[in-house]
């Protein structure tokens, strides 16, 4: 495990206020999801999950076909599709367009994909102003942080934290009432919307048969972002494409319920191309940036490519007992929680943080709540195996490898196994039937030390089961 990962986990666990904030916020989201997906509220919930999984599987298995169809339809409406292979290509495209149009100010609606490519930082580096307009994202941007949660980016901030950030960054009088804080942000952001030259959004779905970008949101800021400025750029991962508009009947029923426990988000926008003659609003130019950034690397593996089905609802984070303890910023990339644990190693390579797929008790809560039925525990296990293979190639972690070879040998030689058990038992400190609090220093190493750092150890029984059985 990298020292950084270890330290971040430790610091988060040690921060009592943060622990409470994470546990409460995720608990609320989790309980709401459970309520609206209960049998009496949504009887066909499991059936919908099965359908959503089948639709995503079909779309990903035929990704080339649907991307081409999507592109044709976007262009038929007068929009343009731009394929980008990585972060640099995305920022180059935006910068070039901004330069040609003389644009200076960009407004953004919430998008994990643009976070993934550090778009704000890249644009600001070249002298453009890029402002987040989703309240949570705006708070995070002012605090110079990355999102803590894929749906609730400022989940870890209390209203007092937000008050501090606004006072410091916006030079306003300190307010701690959430409604008043919202009004402050609204005041600043309205101005930005009116002046912005370009609006950048993400996309929840790309619809192949209608060439439309679908955006789901609660604040209305995505509507303004995509209609007020003269230019709209939607940035989306290539996996976001679904075949038909009618498929939304399945996805929209699941998305809001899984994400926030709402039946439907407040705004669902269908954006298909620039303003047409006779229309009163909408941008003059419409671009869809389709991002690879490692996604195509997942396609050859029949099992692991299910990681691309994700609709970024965040339900797996709220259900995850690990996320609920270590929070979002302990994770090595912008995607946190169970989905982050499976896509980070695949997008960035397993050696980016080799411990990541192991940071799970494999409890399966994520797979149980995932609306598109990604078998996250299964992918984690496959990634663990990938990590070990990569370590073996690099000659790393030799002692652990040896330990497991010995384990396999002992477990296939019952006599040796029994003898080893007896030896270990005779070495263990006598606990008089009581659980053991500590062991002598020379024994307190490795896994033994780690176990005892948190818990007591069971006393070793005088006889193993097989010995008792023989004498029975």
């Amino acid at each position, binding site marked *: 495990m990298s020292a950084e990962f270890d330290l971040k986990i430790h610091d988060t666990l040690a921060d009592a206020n943060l622990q409470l904030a994470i546990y409460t916020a995720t608990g609320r989201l989790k309980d709401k999801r459970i309520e609206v997906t209960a049998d009496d509220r949504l009887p066909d919930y499991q059936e919908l999950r099965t359908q959503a999984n089948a639709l995503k599987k079909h779309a990903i298995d035929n990704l080339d076909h649907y991307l081409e169809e999507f592109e044709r339809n976007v262009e038929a409406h007068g929009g343009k599709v731009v394929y980008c292979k990585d972060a640099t290509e995305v920022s180059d495209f935006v910068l070039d367009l901004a330069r040609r149009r003389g644009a200076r100010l960009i407004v953004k609606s919430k998008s994990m994909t643009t976070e993934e490519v550090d778009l704000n930082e890249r644009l600001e580096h070249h002298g453009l102003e890029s402002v987040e307009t989703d309240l949570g994202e705006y708070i995070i941007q002012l605090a110079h942080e990355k999102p803590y949660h894929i749906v609730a980016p400022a989940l870890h901030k209390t209203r007092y934290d937000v008050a501090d950030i606004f006072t410091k960054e916006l030079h306003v009088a300190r307010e701690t009432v959430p409604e008043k804080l919202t009004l402050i942000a609204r005041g600043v952001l309205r101005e930005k919307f009116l002046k912005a030259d370009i609006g950048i959004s993400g996309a929840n779905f790309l619809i192949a048969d209608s060439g439309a970008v679908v955006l789901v949101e609660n604040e209305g800021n995505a509507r303004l972002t995509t209609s007020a400025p003269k230019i709209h750029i939607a940035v989306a991962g290539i996996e976001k494409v679904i075949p038909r508009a009618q498929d939304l009947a399945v996805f929209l029923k699941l998305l809001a319920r899984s994400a926030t426990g709402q039946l439907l988000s407040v705004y669902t926008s269908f954006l298909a191309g620039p303003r047409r003659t006779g229309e009163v609003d909408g941008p003059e130019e419409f671009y869809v940036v389709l991002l690879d950034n490692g996604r195509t690397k997942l396609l050859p593996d029949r099992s692991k490519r299910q990681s691309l089905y994700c609709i970024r609802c965040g339900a797996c984070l709220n259900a995850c007992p690990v996320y609920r303890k270590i929070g979002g910023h302990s994770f090595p990339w912008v995607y946190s929680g169970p989905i982050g644990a499976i896509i980070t190693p695949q997008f960035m390579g397993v050696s980016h943080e080799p411990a990541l797929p192991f940071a799970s008790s494999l*409890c399966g809560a994520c797979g149980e709540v995932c609306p598109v039925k990604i078998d996250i525990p299964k992918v984690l296990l496959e990634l*663990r195996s990938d990590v070990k293979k990569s370590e073996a190639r690099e000659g790393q972690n030799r002692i652990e490898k040896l330990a497991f*070879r010995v384990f396999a040998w002992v477990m296939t030689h019952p006599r040796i196994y029994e003898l080893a058990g007896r030896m270990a038992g005779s070495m263990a400190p006598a606990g008089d039937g009581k659980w053991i609090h500590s062991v002598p220093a020379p024994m307190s190493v490795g896994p033994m030390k780690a*176990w005892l750092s*948190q818990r007591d150890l069971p006393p070793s029984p005088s006889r193993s*089961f097989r010995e008792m059985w023989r004498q029975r």
Partner: protein
Amino acid sequence: MGNQVSLFVTCMVDQLFPKVGIAMADVLERLGYRVDFPEQQTCCGQPAYNSGYRAEARTVARHFLKTFQASETIVVPSGSCTAMVTHHFADLFQKEPETLALVHAMEKKVYEFATFLTEVACVEDVGARMEDVVTFHDGCHALRELGIKSAPRRLLAHVKGLELREMAPAEECCGFGGTFAVKFAELSGAMARTKIDAILGTGAHTVVSLDPSCLMQIQGALSRAGLNLRTMHLAEVLASR
């Protein structure tokens, strides 16, 4: 199906909690089963599998398949080890059709203890008695991979003198997770302490589960916190009278 059953007690019960295995055998015998213990048995291979060492896990899994090939029915005092055989062995042998066929045959013969009682033996009242207030902890693999939820509760409901109080939530992981418990010790310990808060909230004196590994984690954390609660495997409760 005859009335002969083989025990797979798991390496953990064999080495650390032998009384759980004895209790399981007692309950089965009282119900009229003839119980045998194939002496060649060791482990299901899960520690290697969950740690990413698939070749080593495969070696141990093969040994398991050989050991229990002749058994008609195998009963296991652990949801997690049962799930390893019934849900993960197949993943290990995708490229070996012959072994895969053996695995699929094995999947049908292996039962977690509570499921065996309610679904094969078709009993809910095993004639047990225990005066106590208990809470039941769902092991994650039993719950989510094997779908075991009501069987242990139905069995506990028939234990005379016993009161079951559900914790909120009973489904949240205790933080064991095999090697996770030592690789991420501090995190695992924090998860155990959250579990313990839920347990204390019920006012129960005893925590019951059908997974010895969860019980080791929970008892270890209870003991470390100086709390005077005990843990018991479901088999031990059902063997009491």
